């Protein structure tokens, strides 16, 4: 009798299939390795390197000095200011995006798609240009200031302050909050809400006890997607923020360009990276999907 499938053959076939998968992913992996992993490695390496008196970075005399400097008051102030701004941006974005995402996901499918495209339209034009547009809007004789002072709500001069930065960040990252929220809310089985209402829950209780907990993966995903880039934001604070009080992004750039302190710039970058990784970790801990 012929044995067609020998014991080892199945295993070999499986391995061949997995090699095929690897081959298909290879171009992207090479790209990411060359342009992301290697430079990142340099950043980590620089953070342990020595700064010479002339401001060059010497890849010798490995030390932790750049990390010790992270504890300095100036650096800590920058980090906390950035954290604070990122947190406020995230909370504001969530407060604005949740009702919108809820609204979109409860429309009929055709309307839904139209509204989703609407949310993404800003991406079709350049981020830098859109941020500069805010400068015009928030300018001292811009429309925002006039409306605010006309309505008697202070003089409304907020350009080059943290308020302007937060407005710009919320504006820029709102879609990143809306989309995962939409994905999470849209997936909720509506009969669960009916079930809750049938079990004596008011509309608000049904939301609090059923919709909100089930949309949490979207809340967490959206919050990370907004918090992480807000924490390291460079363009928005540079255009809308004041120069006096630095934020993380600009502070890092300053280290490399003006202060010529490569190691400190690198250790700051590593700090940002660690914060981001922690955020992502929290997300996966919560059983994250939909990222």
């Amino acid at each position, binding site marked *: 009798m012929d044995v067609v499938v020998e014991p080892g053959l199945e295993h070999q076939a499986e391995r061949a299939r997995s090699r095929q998968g690897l081959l298909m992913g290879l171009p992207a992996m090479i790209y990411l390795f060359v342009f992301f992993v290697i430079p990142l490695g340099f950043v980590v390496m620089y953070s342990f390197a020595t700064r010479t008196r002339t401001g060059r970075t010497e890849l010798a005399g490995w030390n932790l000095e750049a990390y010790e400097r992270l504890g300095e008051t100036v650096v800590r102030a920058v980090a906390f200011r950035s954290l604070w701004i990122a947190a406020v941006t995230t909370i504001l974005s969530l407060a604005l995006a949740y009702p919108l995402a809820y609204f979109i996901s409860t429309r009929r499918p055709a309307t839904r798609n139209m509204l989703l495209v609407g949310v993404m339209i800003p991406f079709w034009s350049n981020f830098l240009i859109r941020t500069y547009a805010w400068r015009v809007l928030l300018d001292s004789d811009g429309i925002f200031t006039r409306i605010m002072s006309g309505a008697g709500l202070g003089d409304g001069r907020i350009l080059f302050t943290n308020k302007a930065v937060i407005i710009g960040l919320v504006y820029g990252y709102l879609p990143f909050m809306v989309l995962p929220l939409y994905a999470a809310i849209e997936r909720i089985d509506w*009969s669960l809400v009916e079930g*809750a209402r049938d*079990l004596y*829950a008011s*509309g608000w209780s049904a939301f609090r006890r*059923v919709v909100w907990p089930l949309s949490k993966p979207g809340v967490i995903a959206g919050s990370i997607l907004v918090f992480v880039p807000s924490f390291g934001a460079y363009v928005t604070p540079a255009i809308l923020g004041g120069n006096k009080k630095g934020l993380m992004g600009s502070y890092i750039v300053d280290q490399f360009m003006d202060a010529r302190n490569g190691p400190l710039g690198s250790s700051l970058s590593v700090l940002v990276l660690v914060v981001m990784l922690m955020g992502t970790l929290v997300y996966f801990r919560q059983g994250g999907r939909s990222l």
Partner: protein
Amino acid sequence: MGDKGVAVGLSGVVKRFGDVTAVDNLDLDIRDGEFFSLLGPSGCGKTTTLRMIAGLELPTAGSIQIHGEEMGIRPPNKRPVNTVFQSYALFPHMNVARNVGFGLEMRKVDKAERETLVSWAIDLVEMGEMAHRKPAQLSGGQQQRVALARALVNRPEVLLLDEPLGALDLKLRQQMQHELKELQREVGITFVYVTHDQEEAVTMSDRIGVMHDGRLLQVDSPERIYEHPTTRFVADFIGQTNFLEATVASADEVVLANGDRLRLSTDHDGGAAVAVTVRPERLTVHGRGEAPGGTHGLDGVVDSVVYMGNAINYTISVDWMHLEVRCPATLAGDRKYEGDEVTVSFDPDHASVVIG
């Protein structure tokens, strides 16, 4: 309206979705403590009717009363009813005990009493061991039981069930049919049960309302529905049957298509086109001309014979139509064969006049 014996009273209830009339002028009284089934094919409006009682859908017109109290536009959380949903709608982020206790928690029942009631309900459906599991860790049948417990724990005046056994396989479904009926007797709550499965409705219900195209065609006991349907749709939907085309001659006589006169009472007008319906098992087959007295005989020829084990199915062609006959499989002596010339007979008491 409003008397004590009526648990749910619907009068003139209409529901339109845009141009579509889902429920058309429904009048129905569901009695206190009964197991009532709304039966009909999908899209007949039975689920919409149930949802209107629950308050998940508001009627376009008409009145819905529960124990005499007008429901109007009251939201579902303010109605003394609970629903077992077709998809169960168990909260995936809560364990069995939390799911079952949800209604009590919403009604602010205090914790000690809540725990007693929850464990009573969980035991009632024999899910005691599973109290700490999440719905995703339960089988379909178990989820079904939890959904039941979650509704029953609130001791609703009326329990609404929307095809609750639809997702279960046949064997489990039959077992649950039995358990549901037992449970209903035990708790004594009025059950309103929506199903498209005629067998399910017949085995469980005290009364059945058959719906078609948004209208309630007949409300009766399972026996009456089966033995004396009033419309062709009901006769056809519940089990197998034969239709003998006929015309109404007078209030107690119809004329079959072959000219035979049959004494059957009917309230349709003289000259109306009707049909006489007789179930296959109410027909008997005899040798030609041997039909017993008091029955009506039709001469025909055996077309086909199918042996079913516990019964024999004959198809017999009389000169203007085919009749399906189902005989208990007794001794072989009575058996007829293809081509035999026979007389098919039935007792007019077992026949009904239907219209439509």
